[in-house]
């Protein structure tokens, strides 16, 4: 069952990501393929027993970030600024990336041997309570810094996107 789920979700994620890159006509098709990829990745996280991270992936990525992308695409289309011109797909870049990918594959293969495959973890691994406790005891500085970063991001976005009043 888990094997079947893994294959289905992986293929969906890969198909979605190829759809993001390969959709030349319309950026909204790319955005929808991105949603499919995000949801498939969330499924993979839950398969890896990272329940909290999987839920946050759905809530934040699929539910807010891609909505923001779609919102901006619709806003810009309404203004009639038109789509990008000819999308060039130079074969050289694709071939180069493929070479790098294949060599990375062999490197990974070499590096990932000599460990027990899946150690048993206690049932509270990846639950909200465990991650919450870790975040607020060991990593509380990171949480505070993330708060400041979010505030800076909100201010930056509001200031950048405001219309000039001159």
């Amino acid at each position, binding site marked *: 069952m888990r094997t079947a789920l893994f294959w289905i979700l992986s293929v969906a994620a890969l198909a979605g990501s190829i759809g993001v890159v390969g959709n030349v006509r319309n950026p909204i098709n790319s955005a929808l393929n991105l949603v499919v990829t995000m949801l498939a990745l969330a499924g993979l996280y839950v398969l890896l027993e990272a329940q909290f991270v999987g*839920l946050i992936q759905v809530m934040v990525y699929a539910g807010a970030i891609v909505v923001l992308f779609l*919102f901006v695409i619709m806003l810009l289309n309404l203004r009639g600024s038109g789509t990008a011109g000819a999308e060039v797909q130079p074969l050289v870049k694709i071939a180069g990336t493929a070479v790098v990918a294949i060599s990375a594959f062999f490197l990974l293969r070499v590096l990932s041997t000599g460990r027990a495959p899946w150690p048993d973890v206690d049932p509270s691994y990846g639950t909200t309570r465990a991650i919450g406790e870790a975040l607020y005891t060991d990593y509380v500085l990171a949480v505070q810094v993330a708060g400041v970063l979010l505030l800076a991001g909100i201010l930056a976005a509001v200031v950048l996107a405001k219309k000039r009043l001159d």
Partner: protein
Amino acid sequence: MATSTVFVALFIFALVVLVFAPIMTWVERKQSALMQDRIGANRASIGGIKALGLIHPLADVIKMITKEDTMPTGAHPFIHLVSPFIAVTPAMISFAVIPYGGTYDLWGAHFSLVVADLDYGVLYLFAIGSIATYGSMLAGWAGNNNWGMLGSIRVSAQMISYEVALGVTVIGLFMIFGTLRLTEMGMLQQETFRVFGFMEYLGWVEPGTRWIDWITLPMWGIVLQPLPFFMFLTAMMAENKRAPFDTPEGESEIVAGYFIEYSGMKFGLYMMGEWIEVVIISALLTAMFLGGWTLPWLPEERLIAFLSPSFGANIANLLAMLLAVGVFLGKVIVLIFFQMLVRWSMPRFRYDQVMNLGWKILLPLSLANIVLTAVGILVVKGVTGR
């Protein structure tokens, strides 16, 4: 365990989709008619039997199924086809975590009245709620219509703004209950606390006074956090695009907004999704704030222990289960009634008023509520150690 899950899922489907949704359309028409001092829809009849207008939901369904299914030129065919389903699916799968009752032992089978007792139950609902944005947003864009696009932009802005308020509002409740699991929240709400207990700790009366022990209140969410109840209700109604927040489907402003290019059963699917979400809102509020499936001051173990000697353990469990489901549905119906009351009493908000309410009023209030709740918990813990 698996069979009980299937039963509960089928029960929910049969009840909500097949019974509640059509009856709610009838209730809305009759209730609004009563409030507005008119008769309401009463023309549909089968063979001369009018049945107070209850034939109308059937007539509506027949009308929607037999209407022509149009697709405008220049529309994106796949997204136009798929958006109604994207809108309805999150509403339906939200029912998976809502508990209709606790766990009962019936003739050896351990029956649990919830489809999926997830450890992170409420987070699942928020995640599904954020997916629901797509159904409405893509609908307006897929129709290749300017009014539709405007409706899409409005609806996506409104929904993502109120998601924030939705999440932050209930954090205080999670801090008090200490769990995200809805069944556990239902169990915790069965306890009672003494209202005037603080007098004993402050030394105003001697310990052991009788009358203090008699005045108790159940630990319902609404008693512990009254303001977040109303804030959550408001945020959920805005998230559901339900009046008075139905600017995106503004029937008199932008000609039905984002469902302008939908006819027939696809439009019916959007309407059905909205009604199912009304039931979800009521069910969620009941489970978290109004005590779930129990009556106040009557914990379930006491009831089962009370009934067991006279009826036997199995029948006592069965009676308790039926009472639980009945109480839950009763509370849900009261909240549905309340939501329809609000819809027909208030005029539609303007778009900037909607955004104002979401960002400038709900969010600061809910953040202040978190701080106050934290202070309250520390005080109570310090005094009683509980």
